[in-house]
Structure formats: structure tokens, C-alpha cells
């Protein structure tokens, strides 16, 4: 595909006076109002990313507390209920406060730029979608603090919030339910905005089959979000009613069933992992061709693969519930569906590998992350197929084997994908190149730390160590100590990440409009036709794509 820009992408004004007036208009507003009342997709994207980084430290800090407590058997410094509260909120923060906002921030920044749109379709809705997040984060933090001030027992259920335990929790649980309501609204509104933008605001000539893969990935992600968030909202609202309004949706004594909540939760929860995964797959679909200097091995199969993943991912939720007493027919169905999902995932991963085959590869930081994702996410796929097999899962369920599996899926699959995207697009966002040496040090530091943390957990899980326990049997000590040391190594690496970002934002080697040599190969986004950083208002006149 070649891109012909028929306007300069900045302005179609002719006279110097009109250019001068345009310059004033193209300056961002001054003061705090710029951020609170922003309708600019770049500013809102920046706010999402900064929010996500702050939450990364909050959720990561909780992970450090968990791993510090688990360094030795016995109780160290955390009360059992507080430990379980840390486990619960660590997961909620990472899923809803880090990965989803960071991916949304990247979507906000990049989708309008990649499709040649001046902004998102619904800019004021965009503002609301972001500002709901700090409100939700406040409610979440309150839910942790409130038990210390007489608010009853902390939320100790794990992020799955299963009744009847969640019905017995203190006021923190209600605050958590409201947090999820607000987060759900934010996600649904953002998803509506993204679908509308992609369907309606592409530059003339930019057909669907010329879209960068990141845009396709977010189109599917947004559709998925709209379908699944209401299930979570319904489930937690029913929980709220059971807690306070005398209903018994999940109370067997009143004619209800706790398993109903599980189904409602996991009908949301399983597709949610594809919401977390797909944007990173989209980022990979841009980074791998760029640094291999070779178009994607199969663009259409990748798009189809994402679509099939979405469809299959909606109908396999109960593989999280094999031990509840379902019929053999039901468990068989979910097992077969879950195993089938490995086909589109494998299709995507092999696609990336064959893209690299005989390519002219260089190994800048984004590419290092991309390759490590392909390798480590494959570990998650392997353990995932093991977990899918029902009789085997009866042994693995609720052990650290599951913890190892999903951390290998989520950290390489979601978090490292976001890091790769950040390093790839930082030059465009800031106008400066990041320090490549520091980037590579960060990559190796974080990868080694991550693997040291979670690889031993496969073994402690297979040896029988249960999940969500503050104290464990002495035969698991060595695995836990290695894991805790790895966790501290992994956690500390993020201080370097913050330093790299601050250093890049403040200044450095000027980034050209196209900092990456291979970025024009295949289906490039239109962001590379703009200067680095792009002006406050870009593509006020839509470019034409041939």
C-alpha cells in the first residue's frame, strides 16, 4: 500500500494570515483546564498512560508485599485477611487499572493517527471515559482502607469475588462493587467510541484490509468489551442486592445458587483475558514486520484469527469451573472448545515467526520484547492446554500451576506487549528517541526477573501448593524463595522504566517522522506521515490513501 497525502495533513489554509490564525488554534490550551476538560485524543491518551503507570506501581507494590510475606512459611507481617485483600486488589488493579487503561491510552493516541482521523468520533465521551478511572481508583483504595476504620472485614475473596464469602465481607466489598460499576461504564463508553471511530472516520481510500493490525485488534477488543462488561455489572449488582436488599440470587437457602455468580463472572472473565491480550497482539503485528523489514506472512489470516479467537473465547468460560460438579457432557464441551482456541492463537504466533523468517532483522528494544512475547506466551499456551484437560485440571485447579500459567499469559501477553508499544511509539509521542542502551538493559532485567518469579511456580503448583494462602507447607520453601527474589528483581526494573520515560520526555536525540526504518512495510499506519511529536491538532484535512 502506498500512502499519498493530498494535503499537508496539518492545514489546508492558504494565506499567511490564515496560517498564523491556524498556529494559535493549533496550540494546546493553557493551565489545568487543558487536562480536566480535554477533548484531544493525544492528551487523553497521555493521561490514560500516566494513570496506568501510577497504578502499575500500586499493584506492583501489593505484589511485592505478597511475595515478601511468602518468602518464608508462617506468618511474617501481614494478617491473613489483609494478605488475601492484597491478593484480591493486586489482581483488580493490574487487570482494570494497568493493562486496560494502558491499552486504551495507546488506542486513544494511535487509532486516530493511524487511520488519518482528526480525533476520536466522540471526544467529550472520551474525556468522561478517562476521568471515570481516577474516581474508580479512589473507590478501590477506599475499599482497602475502610476495614481499618471499622468497616468490617476486608475483601478477602480473590478477584473473582465468589459468594458466599463476598456476601459476608465488610463495607470494602460494596466500594469494590461500585468500583467495578464505574470501571465497566468507562470501558463500555471507550469501546463505543473506538468502534465508531474505526468504522466512520478512516481516511478516504483506507479500506479495512489496509488497516494496521493494531486498529483491527482494537476493533475486536472494543466489540468484545461491549458484549461482556454487562455480564460483570449484572453479577456484581446481584451481589450487592444479596448483601443489602434481602435477595438470594446466590443463596441456596433462599432458592438461589452460588454457582450462578461463577457463571456470570466467568462469562465476563474469560473473554476479558482476550480483551487484555488482543491489543498486545495488535502491537506485535506492527512491530514484527517493522523490525524484520518484511510484510506480515499472512495479514488476512491474522485478522480472521483474531475474529475466531473472539468468537471461541465467548463460549468456553466454564473451563474456570471444572470442579463445581458439572455433568461430564458439559465439561467435555468446555474442554474441547478450550483446546480449539489454541488453533487461532497458534496461527497468530506462527504468523509472526514466519514473518521474521528470512527477514532483515534488527533487535531494538521493541523487537526484543516482541520476540520474548512469542516465546513466553507459548509457555502459557502449553500450560493452558494442560489446564484445559478436565481430569488433569482436577489436580491443577487452585494450585500455583494456574498462577504460573496466567502470569505467563498476562505478563508477556499483555504487559510486555504494552512495553513494546511504548518503546515503539515513544519517539512519535515525545519527539525524542529513548536511550537504546537503557531500553535493552530494562528488557533483560525485566525478562530475567519475570521468569525467575513465575517459572518456579509451575513446580510448586505441581507439587501441590494451593493458591491464595498466606502460609504454606515447608516443602515449598525453596520454590517460594526463588520466586520472591525474582519478584523483587522484576519489580525494581520498573524504576528504570520510569527513568527511561522521564528522560525521553524531557529531551534527547530528536526523533524524525519515521524513526523506524521498516515502519512503511506492509500496512503502515498514517502516524508516520506526521512529524514527531505530531501537532496538537492533526489531520484536520483528511489525507487520501491510494
Amino acid at each position, binding site marked *: 500500500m502506498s500512502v499519498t497525502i493530498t494535503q499537508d495533513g496539518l492545514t489546508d489554509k492558504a494565506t499567511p494570515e490564515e496560517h498564523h490564525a491556524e498556529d494559535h488554534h493549533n496550540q494546546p490550551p493553557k493551565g489545568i483546564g487543558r487536562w480536566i476538560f480535554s477533548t484531544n485524543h493525544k492528551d487523553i491518551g497521555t493521561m490514560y498512560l500516566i494513570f496506568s503507570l501510577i497504578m502499575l506501581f500500586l499493584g506492583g507494590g501489593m505484589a511485592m508485599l505478597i511475595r515478601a510475606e511468602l518468602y518464608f512459611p508462617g506468618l511474617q507481617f501481614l494478617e491473613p485477611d489483609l494478605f488475601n485483600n492484597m491478593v484480591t486488589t493486586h489482581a483488580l488493579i493490574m487487570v482494570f487499572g494497568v493493562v486496560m487503561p494502558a491499552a486504551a491510552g495507546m488506542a486513544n493516541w494511535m487509532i486516530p493517527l493511524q487511520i488519518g482521523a482528526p480525533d476520536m468520533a466522540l471526544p467529550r465521551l472520551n474525556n468522561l471515559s478517562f476521568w471515570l478511572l481516577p474516581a474508580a481508583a479512589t473507590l478501590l483504595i477506599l475499599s482497602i482502607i475502610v476495614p481499618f476504620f471499622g468497616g468490617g472485614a476486608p475483601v478477602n475473596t480473590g478477584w473473582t469475588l465468589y459468594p458466599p464469602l463476598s456476601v459476608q465481607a465488610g463495607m470494602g466489598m460494596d466500594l469494590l462493587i461500585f468500583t467495578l460499576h464505574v470501571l465497566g461504564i468507562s470501558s463500555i463508553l471507550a469501546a463505543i467510541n473506538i468502534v465508531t471511530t474505526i468504522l466512520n472516520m478512516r481516511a478516504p481510500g483506507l479500506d479495512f484490509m489496509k488497516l494496521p493490525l493494531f486498529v483491527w485488534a482494537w476493533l475486536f477488543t472494543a466489540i468484545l468489551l461491549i458484549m461482556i462488561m454487562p455480564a460483570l455489572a449484572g453479577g456484581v449488582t446481584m451481589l450487592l442486592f444479596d448483601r443489602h436488599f434481602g435477595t438470594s440470587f446466590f443463596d441456596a437457602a433462599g432458592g438461589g445458587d452460588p454457582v450462578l455468580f461463577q457463571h456470570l463472572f466467568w462469562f465476563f472473565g474469560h473473554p476479558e483475558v482476550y480483551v487484555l491480550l488482543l491489543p498486545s497482539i495488535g502491537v506485535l503485528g506492527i512491530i514484527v514486520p517493522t523490525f524484520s523489514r518484511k510484510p506480515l506472512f499472512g495479514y488476512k489470516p491474522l485478522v480472521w484469527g483474531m475474529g475466531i479467537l473472539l468468537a471461541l473465547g465467548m463460549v468456553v468460560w466454564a473451563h474456570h469451573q471444572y470442579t463445581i460438579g458439572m455433568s461430564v457432557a458439559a465439561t467435555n464441551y468446555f474442554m474441547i472448545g478450550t483446546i480449539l482456541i489454541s488453533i487461532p492463537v497458534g496461527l497468530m504466533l506462527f504468523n509472526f515467526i514466519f514473518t521474521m523468517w528470512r527477514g532483515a532483522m534488527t533487535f531494538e528494544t521493541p523487537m526484543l520484547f516482541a520476540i520474548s512475547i512469542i516465546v513466553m506466551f507459548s509457555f502459557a499456551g502449553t500450560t493452558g492446554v494442560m489446564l484445559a484437560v478436565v481430569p488433569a485440571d482436577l489436580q491443577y485447579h487452585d494450585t500455583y500451576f494456574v498462577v504460573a500459567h496466567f502470569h505467563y499469559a498476562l505478563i508477556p501477553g499483555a504487559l510486555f506487549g504494552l512495553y513494546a508499544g511504548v518503546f515503539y511509539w515513544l519517539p512519535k509521542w515525545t519527539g525524542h528517541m529513548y536511550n537504546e542502551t537503557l531500553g535493552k538493559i530494562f528488557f533483560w532485567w525485566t525478562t530475567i526477573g519475570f521468569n525467575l518469579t513465575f517459572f518456579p511456580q509451575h513446580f510448586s503448583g505441581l507439587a501441590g501448593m494451593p493458591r491464595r494462602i498466606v502460609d504454606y507447607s515447608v516443602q515449598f520453601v525453596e520454590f517460594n524463595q526463588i520466586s520472591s527474589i525474582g519478584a523483587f528483581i522484576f519489580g525494581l526494573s520498573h524504576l528504570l522504566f520510569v527513568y527511561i520515560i522521564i*528522560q525521553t520526555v524531557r529531551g534527547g536525540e530528536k526523533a524524525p517522522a519515521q524513526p523506524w526504518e521498516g515502519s512503511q512495510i506492509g500496512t503502515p499506519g498514517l502516524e508516520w506521515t506526521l512529524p514527531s511529536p505530531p501537532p496538537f491538532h492533526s489531520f484536520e484535512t483528511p489525507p487520501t490513501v491510494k
Partner: protein
Amino acid sequence: MDQQEQSPELKKANLRVALILGGLAISSLCVAAWGVSKTLGFGA
């Protein structure tokens, strides 16, 4: 990024951030070491 391209003010500002983050890293390691020694009964 070429270090020589950075202005002195920028270098100073970046050094300040690096020292703060490095201090955070070292102090968290010290807290961890203290916790371990306390559990193992080494005193302190």
C-alpha cells in the same frame, strides 16, 4: 542518545531523577533485608 547533546540543566535534572529512583531501589532492598533478618532471628 548522545550524552553530549544534552544541555547541562537537562543532565542535572536527569541525574536528580536517577538518584531518587536509585535511592528508592536501594531502600526497598534494605527493607527486604531487614525483614528477612528479623524473621531469621538475627536481631534488629
